């Protein structure tokens, strides 16, 4: 496609990572607009004008009634056809942290071929019972269809959540998602050699929330819709790393940027 892809970065109701989410899309070569959810409801903005939709992290509606639930409902009931149309058009969607919770609770992730918006998984309270901000190491499934994670091996990024334990009530689905490469990103122990994705739950705090199969993020069957609990946008520059003062590397882009480059390159035909 010609020109820079346009990203709609949703805002409002307690979403609070829109500033840095817009920044990473800009850094990756897209243009980013902050779009209040109500602008889509009233028609003041139109999703079909955009090539990327991002639901950033935050505390929409204070996480009351379950994180992501109420914003998920606003989208599921208020913007149902706009959102389905966007996904069915094969445009990339990302949800980060609270945005991931929204995508899971509105049924877009792990999702199905029909985009039926039926919830099949959830993000439960961390086993610790509370919110935590700590750095984790993520590893990506090289066989995943996810366009956002293409070619990525490991990155270090922070988690900042209280409800990030990925679970489902039908364990057979986990095998299905695993086989289809939808379990795109997992928590791993950084001292193990690559690759080391494991289905055995890793000890706390290597797995910060005791997510099933160490799942940190998933994609839909097409690989276009992706969500994860950790914050890749929080590591957009080397000086935002957790231990950068102990490392001798050249300063520049941080480890989280590859995800956003992937989406932009996908749209640019890369």
């Amino acid at each position, binding site marked *: 496609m010609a020109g820079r892809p346009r990203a709609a970065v949703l*805002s409002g*109701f307690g979403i609070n990572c829109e500033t840095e989410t817009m920044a990473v899309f800009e850094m990756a070569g897209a243009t980013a607009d902050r779009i209040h959810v109500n602008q889509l409801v009233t028609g003041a903005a139109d999703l079909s004008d955009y090539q990327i939709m991002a639901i950033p992290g935050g505390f929409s509606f*204070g996480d009351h009634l379950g994180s992501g*639930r109420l914003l998920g*409902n606003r989208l599921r009931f208020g913007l149902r056809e706009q959102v389905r149309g966007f996904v069915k058009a094969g445009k990339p969607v990302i949800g980060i942290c609270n945005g991931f919770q929204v995508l899971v609770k509105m049924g877009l992730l792990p999702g199905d071929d029909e985009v039926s918006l039926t919830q099949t998984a959830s993000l439960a309270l961390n086993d610790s*019972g509370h919110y935590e*901000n700590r750095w984790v190491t993520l590893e990506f499934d090289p066989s995943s269809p996810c366009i956002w994670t293409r070619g990525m091996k490991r990155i270090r990024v922070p988690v*900042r959540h209280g409800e990030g334990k990925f*679970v489902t009530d039908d364990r057979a689905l986990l095998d299905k998602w695993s086989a289809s490469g939808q379990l795109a990103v997992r928590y791993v122990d950084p001292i193990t050699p690559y690759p080391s994705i494991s289905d055995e739950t890793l000890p706390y705090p290597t797995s910060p929330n005791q997510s099933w199969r160490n799942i940190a993020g998933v994609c839909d069957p097409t690989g276009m819709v992706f969500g994860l609990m950790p914050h890749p946008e*929080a590591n957009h520059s080397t000086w935002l790393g957790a231990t950068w003062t102990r490392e001798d590397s050249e300063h520049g882009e941080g480890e989280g940027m590859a995800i956003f480059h992937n989406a932009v390159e996908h749209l640019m035909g890369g």
Partner: protein
Amino acid sequence: MDGELHPCMRGNLMSVQTEPHLFEVATRDLEGLPDARGESVRAMLAADHGIEVAAVRVILGYQVQADLADEEADSLVHDLFADPIIECGSRLTRLLDDFPEAPEIAIQVGYKPGVTDNPGQAGLDGLLTLFPHHSEAKVATNRTYAFWGVPENVEPGALASTLHNPMIERASVAGPAECSEGKWPALGFPLNPPAPYSEPAAIDLEVSDEELMGISETGLLALNLGEMRAIQDHYRDPNTRLVRERLGLSPNAPTDVELECLAQTWSEHCSHKIFSASIHHVDTETGEDSVIDSLFKTHIMQPTLDIQKEVDWLLSIFHDNSGVISWNEDWSLCIKAETHNSPSALDPYGGAITGIVGVNRDILGTGLGARPIANTDVFCFGPPDYDGPLPGGLFHPSRVFRGVHAGVRSGGNESGIPTINGAMVFDERYIGKPLVFCGTVGLMPRRLTDGRESHVKTPEPGDVVYMVGGRVGSDGIHGATFSSLELTEESPSSAVQIGDPITQKKMLDMILEARDSGLIQVITDNGAGGLSSSVGEMAELTGGAELDLGAVPLKQAGLSSWEILVSESQERMTVGVRPEDCNAFEALAVLHEVEASVVGTFTDSGAFVVRHGEKPVAHLPIAFLYGGCPQLHLESEWVPPLHMPFEAPDLDAIGMGEALCRLMARPNIASKEWWVRSYDHEVIAQTVIKPFCGANHDSPGDAAVIAPIQGGTQGAVISNGIAPRYSDIDAYAMAAAAVDEALRNAVCVGVDLDMIAGLDNFCWPDPVESPKTPDGRFKLAQLVRANRAIDDVCRAYHLPCISGKDSMKNDAMLDGEKISVPPTILFSLIGNHPDVRKAVSSDFKSPGDAIYLLGQTHQELGASEISYMMREEGRGGIGGATPDIDAERNLAAYRALCSAMSDGLVASAHDCSEGGLAVALSECCFGADAGASASIDGLLSDCEHLDAWGALFGESLGRIIVSIRPGDREAFEEAMEGNPCHFLGTVVQGDAITFSRDGEDVLVASMGSLRNAWKGTLDGGVG
């Protein structure tokens, strides 16, 4: 709900029109899915109350008052309240019936009527998403705790008291007998009845002095006799009477609305009367006998005004909601810290969350609106392991700690503002009143697109006054005057509120868009004093305002005029908008789902005029409102206190290592990681130096460094200093130590010393001599000395104070016993960082690196942490020399170090403070998973009579531990020439930390054991 009333409904007098629907939600029984809420309660009971129960389950309840059809109610269970994957939901039966084994005790907790119920509000929003036609619906939430395996000696009532705060919450309890019969607890819907409206009344002040004081005391006005007489005089003035007669107001007596407005405006909280007082100060040591006309003007403001002549970056100081500095050509930074002590004592969670979202609004209300980008939190609590007697009406310090922490966590995290720096201080005297300092940094563009400078408010007569955000309720009445009084058992619950971060976040998003669109003429927050302060203060700028209380949206019908005017209900800003911009402003409010109501107009009439509908209820000349409060005249006398001297035991190197281990475990020094991790410290993707550093992300950082412009490398440094222990000997030393600690921390990360600004937050016990405060002269002398230290040290450091706050009544009178906090200053600092890529962290980097100590060490163990430890262990006192300050020498050394940092010569730098050199060096080792071998020989050249205790545990100011890569040593030593900088030794592989003197070990310890001791004390006990 089956409609049958349970025994636990006794005492619930609320009439309910339609029976509310009760929806219940609990965690599903899935393998690998614990009930994490229940587990947290179980762990909290064990950690904080020593109650070990076998199992706890938590059920979330939603009471919905609405005429719901069955299919609507069914939909609400699955589409709204219960997550279909991980939760089970019910609406016609109680989930307590579903447990395989009935619980032994079940306790339901819900809010009292009128208390902010954030999840309930969210539930209502969600209900309206599904069924918009139920616009009259109400939703309230509760939690039911089910217990199994409760020890026999634990009464159900005692268990309930650990789970709710009767000031804001209700509990319904089912004991074993009820539980065995399935009689479950069931609270009624917390209906808030209309308030008893009372007509505005005139208050006759033509009465005796005793009666004047009676009016002040029974009305919780907190006005003294001189102030009551000043008001009396105003209403005797024939001109006043003439004007009032014309308006239809009681000509020779204030209305209750006016009296309340004056009480708020003249409260210690709002007008800082003690800092403005004329003080007769006597110093028995030096023979000084002098009069100080306003500590604030003399010692805080004057030094800043003098520094302002030398620099061009002080944009707005002292007069706005926060101080503003120009950070670069495009952006300015502002900073403010406040305390929320009294509310946090009564309801730790609500008080703290209200504190943090309140100070965020100070930033939003600075200039034409700034974006809050970082929070700092500093708490002073009683020791969490306190086991002494607790006066009635007080929570145990561990409960205050947990509640305050949870409040600040919710407030900061939900608002999307990172908590980047903070501190916790423990002392038994904070049991009476905890100190909860909440600070916020803001960012704003230097200029708006219309060319206006954003730090300057530009109101004009004719601008429309909007109240934006939350509504006004009876919560939060008398907060300002209440905080100007001591805490007693009778303190009003209306002074307690629960903040609502999401309502505020929506408002914040809207306000910043309005600012960027040029729609805002003037803005301030509604904090202490509510509309009386916010509209009143801005009316001072144009010379008047008219306000219609009838136009103010209310949470609760029936509020009286004065209550609407002074209510401090949260999440509200007051904004002035040009008439032609009102449509655009209101459209933004609609987009963001924020309520914005026109409540008045700014004028230049010279008066603050208040109506309630058509009825005039107040007419207060601006000059009288803001200039009529008489100056206090106070007495101060300094007599140095006497203390038993510190006594050093004779210990061998192992014994010294063990003493260090005990020191590391003291709450003031112990790791706060468990608590700090639950603050989001990285949202906005700007935090460069975080609260944690080191190989394992667990060693403590010093100052925070942020790079607030995405992708930019210019940074801001934020640090704090607090050292209340020294007040026990001399508040001058306390204040000097606080300022130096804040600066030292900032130097440790490489601050730009040519752009540093400070915030002084004083928390004092009542320093006004009276029968209740016989030692008022001494406490005032402490205040005088602390102010003089701020003056001396800030001038020497070229560190202007740009904002500050004082809280002067931090006493609690409980069971007839007075508990006063130690005089405490939190000194916060904001500075520029030229290039965050050159910032330095505190952790040692590699074995083999050389360790240096910058600064001089003297035999200064008076009021040191080790002296308190030894006294508590039964040896000696805390007496001795407190750290002296040589600010010129320190500043030169700081400059040399920062310059070496920008040359890339410094591998690590860590502040030496509580616990001295030995503690600081251990913390540096934790970050590297390494040991250290150090000698104190070099330190002896600073001070001839320095002994090992002074060298290892003394807290001399101006000292920083740095480590240098072997190849940089020569260049570093050259860079530090002319400054005190001692080579101590090297970072070593392994676990041993040793200090030697003349080749003999004086302290030997294992890094691993020190780290365990340091991490074990405040480990949260949960999760």
